[in-house]
């Protein structure tokens, strides 16, 4: 598939149409708009809500191992299940869910290339009923934190320029012109970006139909900004979901070994007292 390093991490809409009711496959829809599933979804799929089921709702964090195990168990996912995730916005939060599944060591988890948009645009069958899931007794692996960046690592990487830092937000968020995506509430005290970060908006990795661009185009996109896998990469955005998408591209489509998602992202850095901030587009060239 398009010369990707790990083509097994993606499935096509055709593949899903043929396997959605396979007992060894669980298809899950994860949307930014958590009501979209109710409008119609891939037959046989279930839904996870990113804001209640894919995070700790008390403290700011991803799911704990126990919470992840509970989600998998109640969703009818076993250790051997092929987990296929898709969603709106070209798989933003689908990638967020996949990232957590990888952290907890699920062996076979894939994205449906093109996500919900492609399924709709192709006029494929939609269901409105939610299927019953037979509960399992899922045991996750311990969290693989080599996939996740925390603030101290990011501060060190920014100060030493030891990692390639990729800001995947819109150019206006990167420069500091706006403090949140247009139309969404401002959630930070300062605008701009982490010193040393390059601006490579997540959407540049996608074709108009929501699918990922071929490997050659992706290499040119990231390599052109000095992100070529020769040193560790840290991706960030505002809350960590858009950067999950870029993390997936760099890790599985381009095959870079050391890629982490900084899910604290700008809502952490842009609210830190005393944190260095770069503003403006010109800063990108200094990186």
């Amino acid at each position, binding site marked *: 598939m398009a010369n990707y390093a790990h083509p097994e991490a993606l499935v096509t809409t055709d593949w899903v149409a043929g396997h959605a009711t396979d007992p060894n496959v669980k298809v899950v829809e994860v949307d930014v708009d958590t009501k979209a599933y109710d409008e119609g979804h891939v037959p046989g799929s279930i839904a996870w809500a990113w804001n209640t089921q894919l995070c700790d709702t008390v403290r700011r964090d991803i799911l704990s191992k126990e919470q992840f195990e509970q989600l998998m168990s109640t969703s009818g996912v076993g250790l051997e299940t092929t987990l296929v995730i898709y969603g709106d916005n070209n798989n933003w939060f689908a990638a967020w869910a996949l990232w957590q599944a990888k952290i907890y060591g699920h062996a076979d988890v894939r994205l449906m290339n093109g996500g919900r948009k492609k399924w709709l645009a192709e006029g494929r069958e939609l269901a409105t009923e939610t299927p019953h899931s037979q509960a399992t007794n899922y045991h996750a692996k311990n969290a693989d934190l080599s996939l996740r960046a925390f603030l101290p690592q990011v501060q060190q990487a920014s100060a030493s320029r030891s990692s390639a830092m990729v800001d995947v937000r819109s150019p206006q968020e990167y420069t500091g012109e706006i403090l949140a995506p247009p139309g969404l509430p401002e959630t930070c005290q300062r605008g701009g970006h982490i010193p040393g970060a390059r601006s490579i*908006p*997540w959407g540049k990795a996608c074709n108009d139909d929501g699918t990922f661009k071929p490997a050659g185009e992706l290499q040119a996109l990231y390599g052109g900004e000095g992100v070529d896998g020769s040193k560790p990469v840290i991706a960030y955005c505002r809350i960590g979901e858009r950067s999950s998408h870029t993390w997936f591209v760099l890790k599985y489509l381009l095959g870079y070994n050391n890629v982490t998602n900084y899910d604290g992202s700008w809502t952490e850095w842009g609210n830190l007292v005393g944190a260095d901030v770069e503003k403006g587009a010109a800063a990108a060239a200094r990186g």
Partner: protein
Amino acid sequence: MKAEEYRERKIEVAGWPVNLASYRLGAEWHSKADNVSPGAALARTAGATREEAEEKAVKRAEELLSRTKRHTV
């Protein structure tokens, strides 16, 4: 049920580029407005016609986008 007559187009709302999608599910039309960059969903609406569904989506998008402050860099 299938999404039929799926259409997407780019328009400008309150000074921001917006991607407007619409399609028919059964007898009902649905529309979704996203900001083009970064691509976040702004509104998802339904109506008896494509025009009605899109008009509702654009109206809601305009309400949200008009609140966005541009800061001096």
